[in-house]
């Protein structure tokens, strides 16, 4: 389960739309499965099909999270023309089994956001609890 403020969900979807037709990516910080921050990051791949989080953006996000006594707990990225479900590339390159993997799909008229865990290649969808603050 991932608990997240509607503000961060709105920021993620806005980021995905702004970067379209390229894939957008970002990092989330938090603790105990509750999101405390969202960091937009540059997609070094600058591609509509793949993403690579800019390492310096990651470093800055990591430092800011630590300054706020939380950690980076996951990554968000967009799929511009496919469903909000981890691709084989996402699974193969998932860096951390403790992370949350948020997907925003722009395939349909309205953006769709879902969250997953990826442990040893196994994809498990988790519920997203939205806080109205």
């Amino acid at each position, binding site marked *: 389960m991932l608990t997240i403020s509607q503000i961060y969900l709105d920021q993620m979807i806005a980021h995905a739309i702004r970067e379209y037709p390229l894939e957008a990516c970002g990092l989330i910080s938090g603790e105990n499965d509750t999101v405390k921050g969202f960091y937009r990051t540059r997609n070094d791949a600058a591609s509509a099909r793949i993403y*690579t989080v800019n390492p*310096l953006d990651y470093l800055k996000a990591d430092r800011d999270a630590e300054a706020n006594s939380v950690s980076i707990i996951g990554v968000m990225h967009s799929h511009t023309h496919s469903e909000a479900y981890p691709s084989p590339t996402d699974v193969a390159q998932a860096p951390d089994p403790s992370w949350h993997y948020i997907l925003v799909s722009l395939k349909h008229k309205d953006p769709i956001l879902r969250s997953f865990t990826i442990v040893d290649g196994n994809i498990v969808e988790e519920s997203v609890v939205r806080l109205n603050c």
Partner: protein
Amino acid sequence: MAIEVRLPTVLRAAASGQANVTVEGETIGEILKALADSYPGLGSQVLSSDGSLHRFVNVYLNDDDVRYLDKLDTKVIEGDVVSILPAVAGGSF
């Protein structure tokens, strides 16, 4: 000299759960070697079998990627902070 190394969450289990460790070294290569000696589980995740930097790991000396400095030969000075970060990537295919 003693240098602080910051570890990502995915590597902390191999370092007794620590987010920051301090190791001795004069270069990035020496520091990573010392890290691997102190925490054997970290070694294979940071360095390839040929001793080069693993391609799925980024190492920063303060704000600079060591791949754009002198790689493993990059010298460190007192007060430097080394950060190890996993490459975060994926895509829709």
